[in-house]
């Protein structure tokens, strides 16, 4: 699994998670308010390009281009039906571009923020839940457990598939999923015991 985060030293990388997220939400909100105005959307495109350039001085523009290109199917499905039903091309193009920019901006947040930093921010954000008996450490422990479990589950899936092929069964979703669930849930119960043995408390 490759994480989406791309390390760097730009101001966007150094900005704390919470303000960065607030700026993102504000920008996306602005974009949806002025999203029908072609000039505003073009200005937003220019600003987004500048942000990408700041974040990745070496290849900011091509990174942005790659992001927008990866949205081609989404853009096509928005554009084609509307053009078929005779909508004018300018509002349709504006709308598609607006959507692509919103997604590219949000992607920039992900690209410049390490998962660990977000985990710390989540831990801080759930701090007030202490009053309801939910410890922030428990939340981050559960997140760590999940991240660890994903390769385990994929391993279970591989073993299950091999065992079934070896016994001459044709792999199917049901044949695959039942043993996977049994192995994973047993693993979960053993894991809970190991957590208790290492002195973890809820």
């Amino acid at each position, binding site marked *: 699994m490759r994480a989406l985060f791309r390390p760097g030293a730009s101001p966007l990388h150094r900005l704390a998670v919470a303000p960065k997220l607030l700026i993102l939400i504000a920008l996306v909100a602005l974009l949806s308010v002025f999203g029908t105005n072609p000039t505003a959307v073009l200005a937003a495109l220019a600003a987004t390009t500048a942000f990408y350039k700041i974040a990745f001085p070496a290849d900011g523009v091509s990174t942005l281009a790659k992001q927008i290109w990866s949205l081609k199917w989404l853009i096509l499905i928005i554009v084609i039906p509307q053009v078929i039903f005779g909508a004018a091309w300018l509002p349709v193009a504006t709308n598609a571009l607006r959507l692509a920019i919103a997604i590219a901006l949000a992607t920039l947040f992900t690209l410049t923020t390490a998962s660990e930093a977000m985990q710390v921010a989540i831990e801080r954000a759930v701090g007030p839940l202490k009053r309801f008996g939910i410890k922030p450490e428990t939340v981050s422990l559960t997140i760590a457990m999940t991240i*660890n479990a994903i*390769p*385990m589950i994929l391993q279970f899936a591989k073993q299950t598939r091999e065992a079934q092929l070896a016994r001459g069964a044709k792999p199917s979703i049901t044949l695959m999923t039942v043993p996977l669930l049994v192995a994973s849930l047993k693993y979960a119960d053993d894991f809970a015991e190991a957590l208790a043995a*290492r002195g973890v408390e809820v």
Partner: protein
Amino acid sequence: MLIEFESVSVSFDAKTALDNINLKLDQKRIGVIGLNGSGKSTFARLLNGLIAPTEGTVTVGDINPATNPKAARQQTGFIFSNPDVQIIMPTVIEDVSFTLRSSKLSKDEIRSKALATLERFGIAHLADQAAHSLSSGQKQLLAISSIMVGEPKLIVADEPTALLDLANARLVSRVLLEQIEQQVVLVTHDLELAAKCDIVLLFAGAKLVEVGEPAPVISSYLAQN
């Protein structure tokens, strides 16, 4: 440390897992053998309070694990047979440091202590690797490091070599029997390993049927099955 069982019985639903165990142990290497379902694992889990007795009292040192599981888990490190289930954190060093999470040490002190422990068990070079990418023998050494860094007084290992190949099984048993200075309770199917202990307990049908020097206990186990 003195491990004491006073008329201890455990039952789950209507099944008896351990039946009236009376025992005093202070040997350094304690082997536990018996067929699957004979009560070995239940015995091991009573030592750190993962299971509480239905009747009777268990005392380890001066702690009753059933009433004070927190202290019991600090005092007793537990090693499971499946190395995958005991790894909690994503990387090797993080998993070892996790044990020290509630100590008063600084971040740097925790890291250097964790590294020293990894060094001791020969896996310091893997410190920053993803724990999941380790071989099963290395994972078991990681589990041992994660427990040893907390300086427990007693190590309980429940078939720690069951899923390992010969070389790794030998490596892990050497660590458990020779390298660790603490008292060790070793639940095992490996009779070669049991033979190296100071005392061996034989369980059969939820009962403790024999306790003593390894050689006679192991031969009566072989004779019974």
